[in-house]
């Protein structure tokens, strides 16, 4: 203990922090934050091709913003959309702004694909040809004779069978009304002009998101001023509003809790030092945790950051116990104080570290990260308290008796007596409360609870979905095959099933490339199908003759068909003509396999769709469901680990202090945890993975509380009077640590975001219970000198 000189230890601390800072200055300049949920899956379950598909899918969704300008007639709606377009162009936020349909591009696509019209048959035409080829001719006549068939009739000269018109139309399965080249949607009494935009990049930077929100507000005012209406939707908007409200929430709760903690600590110590010191301890812990985690894992997940940071909150305890000890002795000196509370601090740290051990061995990367992050954070915060505080607390000796100390002392003396006196009815009541609450507790792992989208945004999104049934769902299929041929077959089999599902109204729409681009073999088969059914059979000749084509025209058509026999279009060439949405469906080929996505719209029968993953080469990707089930698995895992942590801590205490004492100490966090769980049950709170992290925090702080009360009682030969002094300062520390924790985390319970609220609620219930029960540990009933629980 002689080397334990404050200046030496402070130097040691500085060396550690400087080393970490040096490491951090190199590492943290890189991209170190992971946000994709797949990274949370056990390594054995991570499928890179699914990750890639999800990324591609999300990238597209994360950029799209849909704008609809509404007015009483279509002309005004379009005029407003044109105005809006100019405004959006000025903002420079978007890489593409689409109002008028790109007619030139469509004309070009038409020209590029037209030569392959005998090879590129749409699915419906193929079916008709295969079953009743004559129906195709009948349908053509219907079209030609109908009063609507002007445009089709114009194609007749080059394409007497209207094959290509069919193929071209089938590429755009949603029939939208177009006016002045603009898509116009119709509501019961309104017309909406459609404007599609893509943000410049899918990595949504916060400042850009804010610019987007301002832009939406401005556009809204402008359109409304001129008597119109504006509806905007898109992922970026949800993200923007989400981060906006989260920021606001955190800053409101943050400011509230900071002010509360500052006032509390100032009133208690009449000095800023304790506050600054405990902040320093936690900040050092967080920083070290971040750096070390990045060193070990390369990147850390945002979930790790959030929960790890919360768990480091336990470190607040160490600082407060240290400074509160100054009230426990007359001529308090930091070094002596430390000597006295050191065993308690050490046990507190070891218990917490122990409770994270289990997490390290779980197969889930997220939990390993949380464990390491919290362990390092706690260790460094603890080292800050032990190594640096003796120096920085030199001369710190409050000579006042704060009211809270008196209250805490009075309370710790009389409260346990009252509890013990009434235990006959308190214990049954507690048991009933806990059992009844646990009975009602049921887990909810739905990931959608994580994000609480503003209801006005949801309403607009729903309305737009109704008007414009083309927005893709989160779910999609991934289709693979050994080669192009194999892939094509697999996707076609899936699309056939999807076709059935649309007929059963379980799905509005699907898009798969193989419906638009037949592979080489299918292209040949299409040609042969036409040849057999219409050309060889003489049906075409008869059809053309009856319609009134000249012989020259008929012969020219026959020659064109014969010349096209060996034509075929390769996938890359076809993709080059396709629009962006279709291009995104293709994920490419490597030597072993080819991969594509099938996107879905308007899902109503989720289970029917997901059961299609049994088809060969088909994988069902449901990010929401997968994430929810991931959370459920994490929850189960953490529950087991939490139980394991309790056992481990119990055994450790049992070996050190005897089984009876161990039981007394550990009963505090156990009761706190049970009461917290029961409260969730009674108040029908969200119970998921996130509450369990809150319970880990409850374990850490509950153990600390109990251990310090226990240690005060067993501090050796010190006189009983001194003991009481110590108990008073410890009860102050326990009260202060409980109050600061309640302010820091319990306040989160007021959050309207369900998941944040749940976390805060759990912490609040647990910490409060631990605070209420901990004075029972080591309490002496003066008359009998018996120790009770």
């Amino acid at each position: 203990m002689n080397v334990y000189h404050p200046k030496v230890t402070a130097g040691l601390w500085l060396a550690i922090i400087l080393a970490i800072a040096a490491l951090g200055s190199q590492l943290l300049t890189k991209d170190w934050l992971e946000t994709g949920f797949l990274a949370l899956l056990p390594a054995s379950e991570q499928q890179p091709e699914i990750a890639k598909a999800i990324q591609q899918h999300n990238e597209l969704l994360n950029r799209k913003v849909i704008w609809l300008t509404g007015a009483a007639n279509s002309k005004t709606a379009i005029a407003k959309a044109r105005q809006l377009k100019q405004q959006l162009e000025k903002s420079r936020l978007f890489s593409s702004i689409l109002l008028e349909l790109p007619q030139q591009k469509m004309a070009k696509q038409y020209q590029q694909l037209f030569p392959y019209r005998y090879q590129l048959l749409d699915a419906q035409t193929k079916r008709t040809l295969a079953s009743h080829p004559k129906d195709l001719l009948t349908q053509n006549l219907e079209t030609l004779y109908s009063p609507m068939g002007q445009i089709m009739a114009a194609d007749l000269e080059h394409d007497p069978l209207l094959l290509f018109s069919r193929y071209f139309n089938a590429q755009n399965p949603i029939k939208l009304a177009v006016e002045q080249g603009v898509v116009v949607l119709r509501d019961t009494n309104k017309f909406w002009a459609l404007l599609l935009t893509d943000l410049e990049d899918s990595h949504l930077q916060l400042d850009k998101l804010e610019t987007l929100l301002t832009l939406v507000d401005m556009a809204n005012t402008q359109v409304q001023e001129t008597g119109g209406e504006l509806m905007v939707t898109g992922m970026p908007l949800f993200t923007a509003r989400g981060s906006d409200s989260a920021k606001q929430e955190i800053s409101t709760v943050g400011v509230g809790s900071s002010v509360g903690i500052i006032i509390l600590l100032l009133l208690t110590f009449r000095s800023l030092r304790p506050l600054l010191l405990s902040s320093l301890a936690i900040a050092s812990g967080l920083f070290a945790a971040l750096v070390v985690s990045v060193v070990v894992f390369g990147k850390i997940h945002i979930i790790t950051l959030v929960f790890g940071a919360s768990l480091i909150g336990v470190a607040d305890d160490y600082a407060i116990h240290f400074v509160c000890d100054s009230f426990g002795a007359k001529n308090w000196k930091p070094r002596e104080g430390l000597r006295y509370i050191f065993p308690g601090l050490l046990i507190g740290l070891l218990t917490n570290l122990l409770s994270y051990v289990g997490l390290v061995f779980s197969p889930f990367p997220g939990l390993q990260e949380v464990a390491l992050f919290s362990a390092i954070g706690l260790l460094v915060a603890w080292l800050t308290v032990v190594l640096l505080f003796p120096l920085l607390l030199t001369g710190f000796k409050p000579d006042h008796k704060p009211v809270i100390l008196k209250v805490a002392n009075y309370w710790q003396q009389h409260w346990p007596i009252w509890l013990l006196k009434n235990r006959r009815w308190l214990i049954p009541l507690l048991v009933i409360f806990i059992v009844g609450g646990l009975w009602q507790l049921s887990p909810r792992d739905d990931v959608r609870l994580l994000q609480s989208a503003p209801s006005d945004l949801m309403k607009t999104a729903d309305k737009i979905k109704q008007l414009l049934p083309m927005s893709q769902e989160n779910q999609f299929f991934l289709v693979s095959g050994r080669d192009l041929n194999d892939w094509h077959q697999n996707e076609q089999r899936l699309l056939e099933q999807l076709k059935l599902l649309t007929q059963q109204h379980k799905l509005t729409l699907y898009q798969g490339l193989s419906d638009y681009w037949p592979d080489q073999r299918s292209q040949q088969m299409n040609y042969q199908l036409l040849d057999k059914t219409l050309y060889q059979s003489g049906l075409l000749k008869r059809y053309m003759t009856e319609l009134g084509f000249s012989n020259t025209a008929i012969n020219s058509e026959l020659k064109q068909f014969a010349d096209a026999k060996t034509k075929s279009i390769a996938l890359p060439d076809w993709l080059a003509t396709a629009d962006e949405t279709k291009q995104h469906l293709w994920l490419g080929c490597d030597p072993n396999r080819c991969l594509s996505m099938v996107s879905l719209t308007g899902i109503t029968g989720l289970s029917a769709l997901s059961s299609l993953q049994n088809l060969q080469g088909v994988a069902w990707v449901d990010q929401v469901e997968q994430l929810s089930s991931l959370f459920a698995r994490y929850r189960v895992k953490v529950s087991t680990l939490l139980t394991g942590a309790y056992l481990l801590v119990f055994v450790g205490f049992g070996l050190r202090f005897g089984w009876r004492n161990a039981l007394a100490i550990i009963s505090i966090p156990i009761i706190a945890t049970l009461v917290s769980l029961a409260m969730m049950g009674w108040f029908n709170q969200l119970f998921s993975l996130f509450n369990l992290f809150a319970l880990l925090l409850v374990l850490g702080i509950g153990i600390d509380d109990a251990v310090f009360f226990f240690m005060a009682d067993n501090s050796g030969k010190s006189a009983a009077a001194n003991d009481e002094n110590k108990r008073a300062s410890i009860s102050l520390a326990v009260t202060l640590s409980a109050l600061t924790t309640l302010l820091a985390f319990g306040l989160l319970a007021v959050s309207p975001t369900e998941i944040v609220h749940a976390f805060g609620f759990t912490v609040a219930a647990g910490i409060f219970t631990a605070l209420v029960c901990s004075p029972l540990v080591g309490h002496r009933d003066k008359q009998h000198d018996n120790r009770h629980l």
Partner: protein
Amino acid sequence: MPTFLKALLLFVLSLDQGYADEVLAKITARLVKTPLAEGRFQQEKRLKILRKPLISTGTFTYHQSKGVIWKTLTPMPSLLLVNEAHLVTGQGEQAVPPAFGNVFKALLGGELNRLTESFDITGKEQKSSWQLQLTPKDELLKKVISTILLTGDTELRQLELQEVNGNLTRIGFTQITHPDHLSSEQQSDFERLSP
């Protein structure tokens, strides 16, 4: 019968409101205005590529709020149903022509003058009949349609659409009546339009 006239124009055109015109107003005044009209049609399409015209005949029903039933009987039976929101043919649901809903509203008012927004109109009104010649204003439409000729008396009797590429469509209307209510068959056809 101004309402049906407009419903028909929708098949090929895009229209919007404009200002009143004297001839139009007079013609409008002569037309029989009821919520329901039905009759027979003969349609003749002359396509340059074909050596003979495509001639079809059948019946039509116009209902002010429900839409139009266009029933072709010869040379091959087929059915086309259309209202402001849906267009159904033998091959399923199709895209509704531009501005249909808007015009549909205009139909209820029965104002021919709404045509002036999209067309330059010249017309002559005679004792027993009238004639209107429409030329599109819209650049896009100009590329497809050169003129539309409407002839009528108290009803619209003929529509002639001349396309830029030389194709011509002529539709004649006969036996036009204005019953009080729809037949049950017409009822059920309209039901298919509003699922």
